[in-house]
């Protein structure tokens, strides 16, 4: 298995080549360790995708396809991966905030964060502040991610941060907000630690927080 070529093919979103290579690899009966190396090569390919996105070569549609490609790749590799999963670099509790039903941005962020090694607990859409609080209390993540597309999401994000404060949990987590309406001013008003309209950048911010 040429790992560099695999990474490159993932980066180029060349699905045919990636899937053909992986099928061939699995058919040869590799060890679990070899399989982990292949997963790492795919993740490295996803990092290239993220970089190309930040450089304006790729766009959101390409990120969605990248997520799909990675899911399919892992699916092919599953039989040879065994039960062990690679160590997680941190936990993120993620959700689209109350009143907002949009989840495309959230899902892109999720697949990229998972590819970067995070364990992501996805609370879904229209998530009440209380659900964030409960989950944070339960699993003690390093990071809380809130997503929203509507301008009303800003209010809900503020309510959620306030609820975390009231529960005494705000200082134990970093809060990142993402989505169309978020701005620096909104971020300050909401009391989040970071904001982004760019999933790849969001993942980088999270990586810095746990490193």
């Amino acid at each position, binding site marked *: 298995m040429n790992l560099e070529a695999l990474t490159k093919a993932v980066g180029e979103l060349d699905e045919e080549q990636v899937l053909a290579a992986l099928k061939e690899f699995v058919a040869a009966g590799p060890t679990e360790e070899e399989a982990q190396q292949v997963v790492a090569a795919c993740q490295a390919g996803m990092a290239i995708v993220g970089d190309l996105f930040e450089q304006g070569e790729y766009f*959101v*549609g390409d990120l969605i*396809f990248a997520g799909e490609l990675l899911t399919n790749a892992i699916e092919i590799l599953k039989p040879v991966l065994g039960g062990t999963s690679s160590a997680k670099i941190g936990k993120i509790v993620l959700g689209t905030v109350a*009143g907002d039903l*949009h989840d495309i941005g959230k*899902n892109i962020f999720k697949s990229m964060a998972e590819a970067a090694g995070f364990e992501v607990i996805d609370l879904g859409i229209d998530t009440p502040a209380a659900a964030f609080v409960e989950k944070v209390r339960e699993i003690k993540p390093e990071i809380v991610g809130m997503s929203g597309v509507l301008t*009303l999401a*800003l209010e809900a994000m503020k309510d959620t941060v306030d609820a975390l404060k009231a529960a005494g949990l705000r200082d134990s987590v970093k809060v990142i907000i993402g989505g169309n309406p978020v701005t620096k001013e909104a971020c300050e008003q909401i009391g989040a630690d970071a904001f982004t309209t760019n999933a790849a950048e969001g993942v980088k911010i999270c990586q810095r927080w746990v490193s």
Partner: protein
Amino acid sequence: MTDARARAEERTQLFRDLLKGKTPKRVPYSTAPAMEYVIQYAGYDLEKTLWTLKDLDKIYDKFCAEFLSDTNPVGTYRLPTFYQILGSKAFVMGSGGFMQHPEVVGLLPEEYDEFIASPYDCILNTILPRLYTALDAEPSQKALVLAKAYRAYLDDFGVIAAVRNKMHEKYGYAMLAAGFTIAPFDFIADFPRSFSGISIDIRRRPEKVLEACEAVTPLLVKKGKLPPSVEYGYIMIPLHMAPYMREKDFEKFYWPTFKKLVEELSANGHNCYLFIEQDWMRYLDYLNDLPENTIMRFEFGDPKLVKEKVGKKHIVSGLYPITLLQTGTKEQCVDKAKELMDILAPGGKYWFNYDKSVLTIDKEGRIADNLKAVTEYVYENGKY
């Protein structure tokens, strides 16, 4: 002539000039709030009012009396009752009472050929029953559900039209007919295939996507057309997917059928009104290629670049960020209006409007105060 009639005449003239590419007497202005905001502003329960439409005339009267606008502020696209009767998964009410569009899939990848053969048959046979669950029923039931839904639709939009007319009689707005349609690629993406689905399709089955766009274009032209008797009006086309695509994909999948749509509607004698969501700065040269005096309302972008690249041939609008109304001071809000007017108004072909509609009310009432300040500035300084 009553005051309201005189005002309506003056305002209509602004748009007659604007739509034909002449410089109007002053910069035409549209206000920002959507019906959801207006209901809350009048102190009514949002969700209940969207269902019943009770007191909608009083609700709008309060708003219209306080906020100037050259276009009639009464209107909405989404009302819950008929969507409910249809068992809609495509539009549902979120917990706050706002109608939203979750990601749905009405057409499976293996069904492209069925769609291409007859889009309208496929919509009725395959797509609608998936997205509107009450239509997934035996034929008589299906017919009745559709009849009930259409009745609710006519009732509700009848109320909207009556309130709209009442406000027009009292406050005198520009008289403009409006049509509505969607770009072919966006149409395939939004409900049949979903954002994720189409992003995958353009790589896995590009030919099918192209054929589907071609096949649906005549339907979308038909949907958008205003009757020939309408002298002044526009066809609203909200644009969705292009900013999320690479230029080479845009050029191949999005642009050709979209251009055809705009050209055919424009050839029919009416202006297309593009509501350009997200950032289209990469595509300004394409936009400039559209028929003259297409209205382009931008959500994001550099106003100078917009004016330079499309503002000579087309009518520019939007770009005023409503988030500033929510977060800024009065002074910052007025400064932003000044900045946009200074860049975009010279030479005409400019319609002051916001980047999108304001949906939610803020507890502090800051939006209303800022909106009034901006409105006042535009009216006082918009004369040519």
